């Protein structure tokens, strides 16, 4: 594994998005890793519809919250094809599901994996390197005030409450850290990203990790 690796450097990570006051982080994170998975396979990098997941993933609660695992399971079981964001744009509130004909182009998944990597963050780094950006669920209570730097204190692994995308890691400095994409806009944190110390399962970053296969 390289000491530093970030899928953004491969141009396979879309721009940071803003969930606004919709509790849809779970949808943003799942759609984001699907976008990257297709780009890694050589498809054009493009925004896919988060609103489609919010409205149609019937085993979740739209803007009132949801589970990344339920969303991945729904995508995998139904083989729903995610359409482009331009065809089903985000509107920051839950709505009725729009259905598309089978001829509609879209992006489905072949499968996914979900694991607890706590105490095995090196294995998690290998998984990221192998499969692409990962979905993670962290305890982000202290992220309300985060401005930058490496989160290494005041962030327990107690109660996971926010879904994010892990796009890379950097072990070149004295404190190794994960590179974590958030969905609170690019003005939050470091251009919309947070840095979380690797090792010690800070914020619970390794507890609930998923990868998608396309």
């Amino acid at each position: 594994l390289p000491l530093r690796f970030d899928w953004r450097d491969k141009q396979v990570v879309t721009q940071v998005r803003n969930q606004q006051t919709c509790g849809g982080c779970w949808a943003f994170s799942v759609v984001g890793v699907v976008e990257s998975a297709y780009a890694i396979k050589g498809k054009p990098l493009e925004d896919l519809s988060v609103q489609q997941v919010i409205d149609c993933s019937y085993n979740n609660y739209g803007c009132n919250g949801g589970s990344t695992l339920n969303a991945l399971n729904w995508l995998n079981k139904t083989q729903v094809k995610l359409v482009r964001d331009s065809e089903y744009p985000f509107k920051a509130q839950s709505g009725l599901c729009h259905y598309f004909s089978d001829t509609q182009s879209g992006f489905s998944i072949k499968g996914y994996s979900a694991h607890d990597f706590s105490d095995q963050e090196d294995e998690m780094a290998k998984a990221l390197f192998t499969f692409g950006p990962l979905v993670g669920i962290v305890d982000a209570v202290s992220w309300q005030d985060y401005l930058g730097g490496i989160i290494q204190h005041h962030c327990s692994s107690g109660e996971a409450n926010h879904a994010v995308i892990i796009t890379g890691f950097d072990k070149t400095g004295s404190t190794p850290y994960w590179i974590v994409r958030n969905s609170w806009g690019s003005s939050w944190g470091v251009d919309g990203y947070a840095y979380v110390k690797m090792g010690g399962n800070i914020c619970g970053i390794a507890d609930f990790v998923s990868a998608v296969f396309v």
Partner: protein
Amino acid sequence: TGPRSREQQAAAFRESLNRHRYLNSFFPSENSTAIYGINQFSYLFPAEFKATYLRSKTSRFPKYSAAVQMSISNVS
């Protein structure tokens, strides 16, 4: 949810400033450690912030075992 009075916003902002001082006070000499301060969420109380932005639910994930290939569901 609903209009928030200026007093509420001011109270939340004051609480945020105090929290920033607390969070930044622990490891001032630790280089590269996180910095906390005023941002778009500073006018929210922690409970309001959590109720709006921290809505992801979890269930137990199987412990990863390096010995066993990643269990990939439905992939040929």
